[in-house]
């Protein structure tokens, strides 16, 4: 089928689809017409029964926590799949030695870059930790904080160079962090069953409303997610970085000595 035929057929399909879509959209409830009863109910329940100020966290980690467990493992599947495919083409042997691409010069970092990264790195990590810990009070949580923490490790690369980055970040630690964090999240579901509660029922002390330590089990779950996301994203950065250093077969063999 060539492009013209494809467009003709698509056009014919749209002749049917567009009127159907229009009629469905016109029949939707008007914008802002009614506040969903579910939202009102959650707004009442989360502060009263879970002592939590961040409703999004209350839904994600408690009321609909199973969805988030699924999402966490979807992320794990995506990262594991990426690692399998990238390593598969490079060979499975993983070393903690930084690969060097023959012929590519190693540019020394300017001092100002090194200094900026050494200042910004710890601050970024601190901010990431803050976002993780305040999951139940302010916007944020394990996913967001985990990504910030992972990007803090990239500042090591920027400041210290690739070899320095690989020296401070070990692939196996990352696997352990990712798997361990995800395992912690599952165990947060299973552990309450040991005391006769439901899967992922919030059985820990709930703390005080608007306090850092509020929300009980949600805090532990967030720590698990943060560890998993930090480990997973850093692993992803590492694999993609290695990918850019794959020696190209077609390269001039003389490059080896350069």
């Amino acid at each position: 089928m060539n492009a013209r035929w494809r467009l003709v057929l698509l056009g014919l399909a749209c002749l049917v689809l567009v009127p159907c879509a229009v009629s469905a959209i016109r029949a939707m409830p008007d914008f802002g017409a009614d506040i969903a009863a579910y939202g009102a109910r959650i707004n009442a329940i989360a502060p009263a029964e879970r002592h939590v100020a961040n409703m999004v966290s209350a839904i994600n980690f408690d009321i609909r926590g199973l969805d988030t467990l699924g999402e966490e493992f979807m992320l794990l599947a995506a990262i594991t799949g990426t690692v399998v495919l990238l390593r598969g083409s490079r060979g499975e042997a993983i070393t903690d030695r930084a690969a060097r691409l023959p012929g590519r010069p190693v540019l020394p970092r300017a001092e100002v870059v090194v200094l900026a990264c050494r200042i910004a790195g710890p601050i970024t990590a601190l901010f990431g930790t803050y976002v993780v810990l305040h999951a139940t009070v302010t916007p944020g949580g394990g996913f967001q904080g985990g990504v910030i923490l992972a990007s803090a490790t990239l500042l090591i690369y920027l400041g210290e160079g690739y070899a320095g980055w690989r020296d401070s970040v070990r692939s196996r630690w990352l696997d352990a962090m990712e798997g361990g964090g995800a395992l912690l999240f599952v165990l947060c579901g299973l552990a309450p069953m040991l005391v006769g509660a439901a899967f992922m029922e919030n059985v820990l002390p709930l703390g005080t409303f608007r306090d850092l330590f509020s929300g009980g089990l949600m805090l532990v779950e967030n720590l698990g997610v943060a560890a998993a996301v930090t480990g997973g994203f850093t692993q992803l950065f590492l694999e993609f970085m290695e990918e850019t250093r794959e020696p190209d077969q077609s390269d001039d063999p003389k490059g080896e000595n350069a």
Partner: protein
Amino acid sequence: MPDWFSLSWIPSAVLPPLPVALPLAMCAALLATAHLLPGRWPDILASLTALAVAALCSLIAVRAADAPLVYWFGGWTPRAGMPLGIGFSVDAASGWVAAFIGTLFAASFVFAWGFFEETHGHFQILMLLFLAAMVGFVFTRDLFNLFVWFEVMSVAAFALTAYHLDESALAGALNFTVTNSLAGFLMLGGIGLIYARAGTLDFEELARAVARAGRDPVTAGAFCLVATALMIKAAVVPFQFWLADAHAVAPSPVSVIFSGAMVSLGLFGLAKLTAVVFTGSDQVRGAVSLFMIGAGSATALVGGWMAVLQRHLKRLLAFSTISHAGIMLLGIGALSQGGTGGLLLYLVGHGLVKGALFMVAGILLATRAGIDEIALRGLGRGIEPAGIAMALGGLLLCGLPLGLLDQGTRILQGALLDGGHPFAVAATVVGAGLTGAAVLRAAGRIFLGLGPDPGNEAQAPSEAEREKANRPLWLMLAPCLVLLALNVAAPEEAVARLASEAVPAFMHRGGGLGRGPSWLPWLSLALTLVIAAFALGRHKLPRWFSRPVRATQSGPTRLLEQVHSGLIGDYVTWMTIGLAILAGLLATS
């Protein structure tokens, strides 16, 4: 201690989350520790986990015989009739389907023993995630949760497809990723629409809202999008194109799961949503009947025809899966107890047989380093047990009156006849007959050396393929034979009794299961034998007989082959057309 063995010390109330949580916990633990584990430990742990899931699901199914097990996560039971959290609702049929999935995974792990040893357990991790997602998909009673498990399944499957990393594997995985991601978008859109109308995601509450809404473009639109997403997963014509590309290139142990469970789960989800959520809308029921009967018949015929045309064994099996998915879709279109009950039995029976056949293909890839039917002619000598398994699989596919698949076929055909769809019944006979013929022809050529000497044709047009041959034949053959035995040995009386109780619970509606005429399966069997014999003995037939046959089939065949172009743009165009047809039917019904 009879009490201990009857497992009555395990309370039913704690069971439903365990078959999902157990594989998730195991895969997280494997990821954290795989590099420390010696040799075969990932294989052992994964197999044991799958077996445990199968056992737990069987126990759940037994416990759910009287009433579905309902479980509210986080202890959020509905308040004043409003569900707050996510629930699982496991009826006996869903429990048995999940138990079947666990069994299929256990067989696949044994089949893949040592196959993926260099990947630090990553293969097992992805497969366990796949398993957990499938069980969650089967158990859930929440539409968004269904979507989450649908997506986890897809993400795990994309990476598993591309595992071999050669050109065809990457192309197949890319087609799979694009089409199934589109399915994800459509489903999310549909969920948004129905949430705007109903304000809830719980199946029971949604059903009430749908019944209240009556004739309504919003619920019809939601059904259109969600059903299309599930039919993309189930590879129904015209959404089927990705399947043959993906299933043919995935490693054999993965293809076992893809064809045996993943495709039919799309239909399982569709059957559940049609029977539980959208049953109150006459508009949806009318369109379902028309579309599913039409598309199902077309799928059964196109899949069967394409299967006969293939010489790449896994591609052949992939097209036969499409054909059987079409037959199962007809069960939904019948809109009756018999249709859905037949579909559920067919799903399990077909999964067992197709899983076994993909294992035979894997055995050929490992021991004979080839997958091309013509190139493998006569090379099956020395592994005859695999040939017997393949022939038996082919006969069961086309309707040998034996076992679970046959029982499902007859109930399904009975429901279609009762519903007044004789053409659909003919499609099931011809579709199943064609796929069986394709498998038998290949088995005859490979294991008995039948058919003409290929000469120059022996060179396979596809790239050379092989899989690692690091395990003994019996270890690969054992799970294959176990799957076939499970299908053949299923006790008919007990299954019939179970189905007559489980199907009304699944559909939330009473009714009996009819039976089609018992001569119909023999008809498909006869058709199969004739076609297979013709394909293998064509060169010995007189010219005046074989030439008209060739002349009449070559035109449509070329057209069909052109349509399966391998181009994503084409695939998306066909999908849009399918979506438009369903939308048009919904608008006018």
